[in-house]
């Protein structure tokens, strides 16, 4: 009898003690419910202006939210995807009309206008991409020689490098799309010597991948380019010399005193590329009353040999990336380039990639074609979505996951 009472009392006491404990619990990070979702709990995107969400010669919160990285982060459904949100109107604010120089925010806003970040400072960054970054900039900041830091490097990374910020975020998955600027800057200048040589590219790229490996995260590596140069797919930022020859010859910029040299005429003119910056820089000078001539042998013009160089360089970069991805078990995709090749071929011809911008048109009408924002280089919102879809498919194919398509 006594023993039963003791047992009863002990049992009652235990129940009371358990009832007296009211432990709070950790709020578990949301684990994506689809197949393979655990890998995508915390996604970090590295890269340059495309990844950051740069459009129409500027960047602000609206364009940042349209980045493929943000779309993928949302589709993955893991932890919140944080990007370094810029205060309105941006840094610099995007163009509303690239031909007049008008930008979001209206009068007084210029290409040097730079508003800082939102006061809602996230605990970590998921999108660590910085416009203008080349491969060397992933692990190095200015003023280190050879780097390309700019005010956005400070505003986004605060004195740290992309790799440091990526690692601080403790990612489970990383995307890296870097290398476009390693050849784009050289192409804009028409100077092959400014391109990053493949040895340096490989070295810096491998260091970046070592850092990703150190986190234990999975990764997708995105091929350099927005279309294959080898397939003659060229950003609408560049126009053929022939096109310029026709436009100037037909008086498209009259009464501005601009003339065009015969070396821009076909057939040679079909083989050279004139950048928007160079060509419309001359138009702007002429509009000021100073006579100018577009010469298709001038240094900024991309000559056939230079075009071949950049096309080969793109292929070499991508071969390096593909080999590294294979060696490290990461996903690699060239599908964005393939998609852009297809867009360039969409009929009516030039609807997606205009061969020559619709001069004077507002940015809302996509003067560089339906695939591009108002600078002829950066994808617009619709193309960013297509890019996100391509990358998600590539990830799912490699990892057997079922990330919903954005």
């Amino acid at each position, binding site marked *: 009898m006594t023993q039963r009472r003791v047992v009863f009392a002990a049992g009652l006491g235990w129940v009371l003690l358990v009832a007296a404990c009211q432990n709070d619990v950790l709020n578990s990070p949301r684990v994506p419910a689809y197949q393979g979702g655990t890998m995508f709990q915390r996604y970090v995107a590295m890269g340059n202006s495309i990844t950051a969400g740069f459009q129409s010669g500027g960047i602000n919160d609206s364009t940042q939210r349209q980045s493929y990285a943000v779309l993928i982060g949302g589709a993955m459904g893991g932890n919140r995807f944080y990007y370094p949100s810029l205060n309105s109107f941006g840094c610099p604010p995007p163009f509303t009309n690239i031909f007049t120089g008008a930008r979001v925010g209206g009068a007084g806003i210029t290409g040097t206008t730079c508003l800082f*970040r939102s006061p809602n400072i996230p605990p*970590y960054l998921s999108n660590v991409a910085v416009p203008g970054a080349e491969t060397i900039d992933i692990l190095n900041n*200015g003023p280190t020689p050879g780097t390309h830091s*700019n005010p956005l*490097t400070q505003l986004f990374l605060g004195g740290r490098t992309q790799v440091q910020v990526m690692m601080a975020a403790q990612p489970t998955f990383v995307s890296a799309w870097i290398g476009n600027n390693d050849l784009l800057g050289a192409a804009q200048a028409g100077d092959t010597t400014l391109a990053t040589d493949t040895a340096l590219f490989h070295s810096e790229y491998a260091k970046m991948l070592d850092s990703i490996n150190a986190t234990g995260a999975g990764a997708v590596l995105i091929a350099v380019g927005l279309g294959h140069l080898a397939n003659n797919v060229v950003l609408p930022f560049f126009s053929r010399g022939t096109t310029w020859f026709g436009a100037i010859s037909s008086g498209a910029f009259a009464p501005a005193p601009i003339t065009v040299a015969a070396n821009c005429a076909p057939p040679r003119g079909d083989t050279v590329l004139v950048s928007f910056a160079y060509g419309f820089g001359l138009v702007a000078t002429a509009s000021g009353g100073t006579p100018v001539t577009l010469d298709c042998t001038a240094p900024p013009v991309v000559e056939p040999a230079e075009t071949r160089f950049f096309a080969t360089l793109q292929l070499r970069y991508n071969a390096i990336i593909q080999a590294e991805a294979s060696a490290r078990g990461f996903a690699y995709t060239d599908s964005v380039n393939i998609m852009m090749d297809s867009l360039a071929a969409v009929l009516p011809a030039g609807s997606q990639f205009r061969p020559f911008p619709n001069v004077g048109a507002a940015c809302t009408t996509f003067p560089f074609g339906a695939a591009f924002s108002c600078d002829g280089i950066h994808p617009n919102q619709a193309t960013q979505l297509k890019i996100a879809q391509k990358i998600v498919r590539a990830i799912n194919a490699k990892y057997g996951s079922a990330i919903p398509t954005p």
Partner: protein
Amino acid sequence: MQRLVRYVLVLFAGLPALLPAQGFGIYEQGTCAMGRAGTGVAAPCADGSAIFFNPAGLAGLKGGRATLGVTLLDVEGGFTDDISRQRSSLDDPLLAIPQVYAAYGVTPKLGVGIGLFAPYGLQTRWPLTFDGRFAGYDNILRSVYIQPTVAYQVTPWLSLGAGLDIAFGRVELNQRLDLATAAVPTTIVPVPPGSPPVLFGQFGIAPGTDFANAHLEATKTTVTAHWGGIIKVNDKLSIGGRYLMHAKFDYEGRAQFSQVPTNLTIPAAITVGALTIPAGTPVDVFLASPPLNLFNTVLVDQTVSTSITNPEQVIFGLAYKPRKDWTLFVDYQFTRWGKRFNTLTLNFANPLLNRVLYEGYQNTNGIRLAGEWAKDAKWTFRGGYLRHQGAAPPETVTPLLPEGSRNEFTGGFTVKLSPGFSADVAYQYINQDDRRGRTREALFNQVPTTLLNHGVYEFHAHLFGVSLGYAF
């Protein structure tokens, strides 16, 4: 005697890391009472600790009692972040709390005594890798009371006692300052009237970038009082109660700041307001040089003041002897945190640094149960259990005091070593309910909410008490 008092005060000045009761209250003021789970307001231990547990308990004392003891605290706890799942552990060392009581029965009815105890205090020490370092990584609150006490047996069934408490208070806060949440002076980036200043975080500085260390230290002495009464209903049953008044400390002290290197460099020239910072400028140089010159303008050594009130305690209890060798105890405790610890305002000589911490503490209730068995004239054994609420509301569970409701289990014994000497040994295990909390204060002195909570604090402790008593 003066040297002894000074020595004892020095001992108490080192009184550290105390988290064993509601809020920053401390109840482990005697080894015997510790074994009883702190019960005994109706029948205090005979070691002089009645000075704290019920001043009326000194009435009827025969001869004198002096007790010297120590309680060792092995505190373990930490914070686990929701997202990263990283756990930061409390960095408290093994701590020692000394106890001193002396009491004397002047007549069969009149008893007097003096005791030193610390009914309130805390120390929380965290590693400098913990995100809570920006709220405070080494926080100390000490309140040492010296209480001369007198008790009188008014009738054979009623005793009353009272003490005057001279309370020595000291508060110390060590914290890091986070550059990401520091305001850029409006002289550099003007803002419209009424708008919050721009933060360095808006220029990309990542959260968790230490750039300065702050050390705040202040002291104050104040006076309060303590009353108690015991009704002896019959030989078996006693009823007791006590009331410890609140004590308000208007602290005055100094704040000292020192620079902590960020080792960051501005990667490219950037324009901040009218100022252009060249590429390659070390952030530390930028902060320490004109026009900011932070460590010669804002973050200079200066006066700081704050006010903290130790709340009143009201305790009622019963002691019942079902058998001659057994005594059962039950105590109820009410602590009035709700009125006394609502906001904590830090006023600096430079008002730009002023801070308001919204604590919003709630009144707490605790229940204590214990039993004591006098085996023979030499040995007495005891054990107990107590449960009490946490004073901090869900939105103010912070690194300063991440407290919550607790279950505590105690056991101990007294052994008579000789006709004059006796020794007490006790053990107490504290298990605090895991509590959701935060590591940071809200920006711009805003009222915090539970939305800031991002992890769980857990805490438990082992306490070992030993004391030596002398009857004369």
